[in-house]
């Protein structure tokens, strides 16, 4: 068991505590991206929880903004804010809204939620940092369904044209969007090949292993040159919680305390090394 895998289990546990308290949420897509977030905050990104707006930090734009709960769990574990904030998800006056908000949550770099928009804001961040000769990098997480949006493809052209070699993007290819499988609703085909044809540096990996994700990011940093990099993550919507994985439409679902507790008990075994 590697430290990143344990960190991913800790994040999942904290996510389930958020969802258990609320009783519902964007559970499937928060769980599927968790291993990538573990790699980013556990090994890859430069940041300072005591100074969330440190100007030398790397930026993360989670353009699939509904995965906010996965990031909040991670930020709390890393000390950006107290763990008990997680119990306030979506409650009146909370600083942890359903979708990421840079003005509410310490450590959130961009407001997202209307799909496609985070793609362009990430490109803008990367362009400004590049022209400032900053060493900071920009990481962008998009959903597979999100890639239905035309704005994503505008950004794909733009980022390659502007040679954004400081941008590394991920697609959480869990093969499901709200209404069904991506094959059924809007077939994305070989999405990696599409980005490669836009002159991106592309890798396709198993996105359920944070060590593989970290390795892919290191490889991208070494190989991308002045191209933006894309890492297509083959994932499972609801990953890590079998009861959620088994639900056909698991984009926004309810969760009972029993199901949450059962999943947390299983994760505790991973965390405890049992």
């Amino acid at each position: 068991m590697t430290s990143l895998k344990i960190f991913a289990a800790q994040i999942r546990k904290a996510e389930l505590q958020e969802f258990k308290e609320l009783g519902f949420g964007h559970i499937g897509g928060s769980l599927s991206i968790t291993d990538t977030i573990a790699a980013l905050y556990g090994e890859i990104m430069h940041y300072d929880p005591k100074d969330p707006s440190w100007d030398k930090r790397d930026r993360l734009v989670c353009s699939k903004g509904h995965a906010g709960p996965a990031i909040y769990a991670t930020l709390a574990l890393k000390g950006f804010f107290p763990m008990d904030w997680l119990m306030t998800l979506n409650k009146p006056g909370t600083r942890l809204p359903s979708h990421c908000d840079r003005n509410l949550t310490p450590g959130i770099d961009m407001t997202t939620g209307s799909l496609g928009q985070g793609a362009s804001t990430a490109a803008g961040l990367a362009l400004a940092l590049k022209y400032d000769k900053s060493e900071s990098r920009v990481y962008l997480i998009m959903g597979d369904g999100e890639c239905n949006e035309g704005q994503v493809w505008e950004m794909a052209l733009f980022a390659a044209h502007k040679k954004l070699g400081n941008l590394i993007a991920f697609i959480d290819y869990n093969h499901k969007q709200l209404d069904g499988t991506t094959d059924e609703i809007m077939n994305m085909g070989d999405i990696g090949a599409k980005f490669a044809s836009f002159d991106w540096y592309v890798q396709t990996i198993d996105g359920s292993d944070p060590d593989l994700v970290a390795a892919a990011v290191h490889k991208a940093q070494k190989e991308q040159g002045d191209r933006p990099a894309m890492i297509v993550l083959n994932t499972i919507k609801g990953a890590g919680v079998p009861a959620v994985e088994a639900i056909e439409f698991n984009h926004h679902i309810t969760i009972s305390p029993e199901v949450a507790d059962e999943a947390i008990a299983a994760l505790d075994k991973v965390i405890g090394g049992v």
Partner: protein
Amino acid sequence: MYKVIYNGDKEKIAMKDAFAAAIEKLIEMDPQVVYLDADLMNSMSTTKVRKKYPERAIDCGIQEANMMGVAAGMSAAGKKPYAHTFGPFASRRCFDQAFLSIGYAKNNVRIIGSDPGVTAAYNGGTHMPFEDVALYRVVPGAAVIDIVDSVQLEDVLIKTKDRQGLTYIRTPRKNSVAVYEAGSEFEVGKANEVKDGTDVTIIAAGIMVAVALEAAAELAKEGISAQVLDMFTIKPLDEAAVIAAAKKTGAIVTAENCNIIGGLGSAVAECLAKNHPAPMRFVGVNDRFGQVGEEGYLRKVYELTPEKIIEMVREVVKLKLQK
């Protein structure tokens, strides 16, 4: 401080050239200023700025939605973006991106929509924004500015450099009628009285300020003394100036180069209804789409003329006297 020099003559400089000069000046005055365009630099005389400052004057290609997001991201990295394209593409084409990535996310971006209303002329209905003012008025915290002439354009571009949030500026590209003396200065959110008067107040914005001044000169001949206010900042509206005008003259006519619904007329009516109801009439585009044609023809078609203002003034003064 501003000085009115209106005599009906046009300015010698085209608005697009004044825009290009102001953008170059801004780039030179502040290292954080960037200017973005969506493949319309050549229409805005800014190609030479891009050649001189390729990392500061950035062509985003024909991607208005992406450009608004890029501008938002650059703002989040500390830049002060000015993003230009034609009015319809700077508003309805990318409205959700402007609304969320800039407005809601509290990024600081100036959006410039050129060729407002009938000034889109030969580009026709697809390119003729009558609705941009209404759209940006409903973005919380946004400023909406309708430019009169090149003197105002340059000063407003510079004055809004550090403004927080979304600032929408609509400006013609060709030569405007000269209203202000070179060097005049403007305060965003504050109306300018460009002509004093006692019987009626014409509250105008953009190209309609010169039309209002022309109407006021005609009205003087029939003994009606018209005050003219340049309400170049449609939002936040200078409510104090509107209320003071209603108290002083007791009769209001608005004049705007956009749809009255959601535009300057709506803003003034909301203010008067709440604070100091007074007889009021509206000159502007009356819930119609644009169409192709020479600008003078279009001004007649949409009744953006001194004659229409005079007609409305006569009506409103009559109403006032009946009260």
